[in-house]
């Protein structure tokens, strides 16, 4: 694995597979009575969140704590940024406190990459930068899909993934596209034209403005949140019209494949992206995504910080990726589970 995790391109197909395989072991830790391992004992991880977030920050902090790392939590609202300190100085100051990894979220695209130029030693994990990337969200989505395919690394090949919603302003969508495409899935973006990116040149995806045209074929339906706080609403006549055209209504839920997987990065706005009844259907795996988020982030932190120290805590540390997986799936068959 690379020194930092800034976006999915840092990983490539092999790197993604490695993260997913290591996640298997950490998912097992989460199921233990005492879900804690000493893997990162002595390491200090800082979460630097310059944008409101509850679930991602808590997910990362839980992941770090389950690995016995010390966690330092920094929220922009309570910080010296309010006193006029620059972002660069803030980040450099945090590192001076002896930090091994910085987990950073910022409303501006590119800040995670900029942080790597400002920091000398710390590993940087991008927990979401502007509209650009949110790699761990994409990884946990893929992990969830793979889990529903009995842990088959090859399950993505040929898988039909439809990503629905405000792709234009979505870092989640950009990372999902990169990850699914790298793993060989066939990705279609479905959005009103105003919420499509200005170009998808080089993305390796199809794009449509008509969700109903692609919904029935989808193996994975990945919904995005309409980000009212980012002004997505101004790109639409009304939320009502969005829901009518792109919402996963009860009517549309009847038309998806029975084995299709519905994902949502949260927070889910019932009645807009997804009808309230539909959100509770068994195909909708939002809670599973949240649980997997912790395990994926443990795997990421392990791969960035834990390498070379696996022997020290042998026995408690999850074993390195197991070469084989249980389950009746074929290696390359793209089995879709049931």
């Amino acid at each position, binding site marked *: 694995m690379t020194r930092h995790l800034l976006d999915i391109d840092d990983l490539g197909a092999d790197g993604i597979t490695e993260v997913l395989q290591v996640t298997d072991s950490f998912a097992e830790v989460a199921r233990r009575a005492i879900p804690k391992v000493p893997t990162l004992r002595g390491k200090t991880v800082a979460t630097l969140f310059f944008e409101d977030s509850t679930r991602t920050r808590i997910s990362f902090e839980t992941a770090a704590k389950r690995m016995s790392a010390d966690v330092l939590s920094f929220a922009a609202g309570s910080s010296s940024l309010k006193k006029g300190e*620059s*972002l*660069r100085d803030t980040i450099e100051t945090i590192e001076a406190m002896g930090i091994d990894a910085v987990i950073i979220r*910022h409303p*501006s*695209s*590119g*800040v995670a*990459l*900029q942080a790597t130029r400002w920091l000398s030693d710390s590993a940087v994990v991008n927990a979401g*930068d*502007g*509209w*650009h*990337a949110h790699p761990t969200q994409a990884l946990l989505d893929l992990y969830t899909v793979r889990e529903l395919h009995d842990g088959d690394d090859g399950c993505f090949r040929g898988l039909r993934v439809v990503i629905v919603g405000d792709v234009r302003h979505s*870092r989640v969508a*950009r990372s999902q596209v990169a990850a699914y495409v790298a793993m060989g899935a066939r990705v279609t973006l479905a959005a009103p034209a105003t919420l499509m*990116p*200005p*170009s*998808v*040149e*080089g*993305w390796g995806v199809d794009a449509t403005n008509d969700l109903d045209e692609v919904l029935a074929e989808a193996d994975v339906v990945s919904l995005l949140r309409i980000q009212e706080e980012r002004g997505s609403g101004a790109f639409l006549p009304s939320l009502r019209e969005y829901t009518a055209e792109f919402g996963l209504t009860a009517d549309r839920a009847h038309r998806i494949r029975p084995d299709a997987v519905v994902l949502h990065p949260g927070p889910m706005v019932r009645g807009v992206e997804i009808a309230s009844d539909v959100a509770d259907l068994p195909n909708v795996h939002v809670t599973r995504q949240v649980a997997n988020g912790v395990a994926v982030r443990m795997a990421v932190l392990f791969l960035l910080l834990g390498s070379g120290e696996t022997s020290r805590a042998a026995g408690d540390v999850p074993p390195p990726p197991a070469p084989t997986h249980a389950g009746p799936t074929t290696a390359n068959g793209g089995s879709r589970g049931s």
Partner: protein
Amino acid sequence: MVAGLRQADVLVSDGRIVQVGSDDGRGGALEAPSGAVVIDAGGCVVLPGLVDLHTHLRQPGDEEAETIESGARAAALGGFTAVVAMPNTNPPLDSASAVRDVQSLARDVPVDVFVAGAITVARAGERLAPMAELARLGVRLFTDDGNGVQSAGMMRRALEYARGLGVVLAQHCEVASLASGGAMHEGEWSARLGLPGIPASAEEVMVARDLLLAREVGARIHLLHLSTSGSVDLVRAAKRLGVAVTAEATPHHVSLTDASAATYDPLFKVNPPLRSKGDVDAVRSGLADGTIDAIATDHAPHRAETKDLPFDQAPPGMIGLETAVGVVLTELADLPLAQVVAMMSTRPAAIAGIGPANGGAHGGPIAAGHAANLCIVDLEATWVVDPSRLASRSANSPYGGRKLTGRVRHTVLHGEAVVIDGEAQR
């Protein structure tokens, strides 16, 4: 030896060219009078001093980024003998007192500073600035640069008023409602990088509008920093129709593309933004065929602490006075030198109203009787740009580490060598 050039000594006295060695087979040699300062231009070309139509000197208001003096030194080192200072200072140059202040601060600096006045009060696009009063102080060019005049009605009125005064309006073509919130060129790269884009239409809509207004009103208009293929096409068509339009392009818009933003380094953030490869090629063609009249730097200094921010929060702008010649000679190496001189001296001087046709001292020619404003360039010298060693008070150059071919060796301002062997003399 470059075609169209000849070898000759140039004798200067009292700020004027007295004699240019004749083409008589003796290599144009002249006898230096006793006591004369001899500047060695061996291996170099002697050009008319360069003229920059578009310089931000930041004084008054942001003297930490640049002062008239530091900017003037940077200009002289870049081979410029005249610069047009943009009015988006703080306070803006929209009043006689503000213009007089800059003129007096610029009196003893090593470049002639010509002030551009604002078109509207506070550059707010709502009320005409006192253009007649400013014209009496010598202002020939008016612009709200940094902002385009958004209201078509206001721009039309300003063009009429300017026509009556015989001055030129220079438009920063940017429709705010189209550009709003954008940090880079809208296209493949902005989509990938997740940065809000500024579409080409933000520029082109205003270019088209103002060409129509200028034609209807019968006014002259100058279009600042053209950056898109569509803008070049519009100006080309308008010139065929006889619209009195001139246009400029910057060295960065012919040498860098929007792919530079992939570093998220705000050094590559500028307005108008770096565009696609296709736009860069179109701007180059526009310069080659004369659709775009002039090269202008849009030298825009920013303090490091204001530039070292997230890309979308950093102010746009890059410095360019000291790298302009090198970038143009390196990147537009196919253009004949005579055309480079036209784009960087003769035509900008004419546009600014400071050329010989207006009784001004800039833009050549190098002939007896004309002002001794000269720039001596070594066309073969290669150098690597080190932003920390430039004379500008700011270091926000996008060319750090770039190897350029062509460097200013000496600059002569009204007969005084203000730069000798690449060193500022004051």
